[in-house]
């Protein structure tokens, strides 16, 4: 997938990150980076059943704009100010795609960003799904 980096694969899914999310996440502090890594590794290996919503949260279902995929669930990893917005797609197996990241001061999710992430996931599914 153009613009996406393969990060790794576990029993549950593979993880990919966009260049954009990569650039933002790399500006976070060490604690934020490590915690996010742990969350993503747990999701890749075991899914998110055992992860508290304070760490990995379902933000909601948003229209993807795709003909093949009506709505998509957008998830967020959370550690202090670092958020990574992601979603699962079935593209040659289950993939968690980290679409965007943000360094936020507010706890409340930016609805426009969540909708944008869902649209990007829809575009990816149209192209590769």
């Amino acid at each position, binding site marked *: 997938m153009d613009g996406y980096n393969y990060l790794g694969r576990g029993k549950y899914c593979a993880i990919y990150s966009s260049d954009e999310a990569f650039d933002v996440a*790399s500006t976070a502090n060490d604690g934020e980076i490590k915690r996010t890594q742990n969350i993503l590794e747990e999701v890749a290996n075991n899914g998110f059943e055992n992860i508290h919503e304070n760490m990995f949260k379902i933000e909601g279902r948003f229209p993807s704009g795709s003909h093949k995929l009506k709505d998509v669930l957008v998830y967020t990893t959370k550690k202090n100010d670092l958020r990574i917005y992601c979603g699962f797609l079935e593209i040659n197996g289950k993939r968690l795609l980290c679409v965007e990241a943000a360094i936020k001061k507010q706890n409340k999710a930016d609805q426009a960003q969540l909708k944008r992430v869902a649209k990007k996931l829809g575009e990816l599914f149209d192209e590769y799904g």
Partner: protein
Amino acid sequence: MNMDKLFGKRNETNNEAFAIEDLVFKVQLALQKAMKKRGISQKQLARRLGVSESWVSQIFSDSSHNITLATIAKLELAIGKKIVFDDCKETAEVQREDPKFYIVGNVSIPKHNHWIEKAANHNEVPEKRARKHG
């Protein structure tokens, strides 16, 4: 899996922050797994502990670095399940002779090289002493 590409390798400058995050995450995950296994919700756990639900939620937050061993023990009692932090490659066990409780932590001691805690007045050779006083 290796996410060093995005998240960077552990080095001298981030070693401490990485170690703290690893342990906190491991404890939080173990508690969450234990709650799931026992079918205990956050609300039920709060009721058992006599605390607010937001206090329990705080344990799983990203700012719960100062969770004490006493708190972990209380949570373990309230959940009614042994909390085992066992998802590390190199493990060591600190085990009582009566192993009702143990912690497996990320310490580089071979798994089978058990360090058994003993009381200061523990009798190493009871038979010998028995003969001497007998």
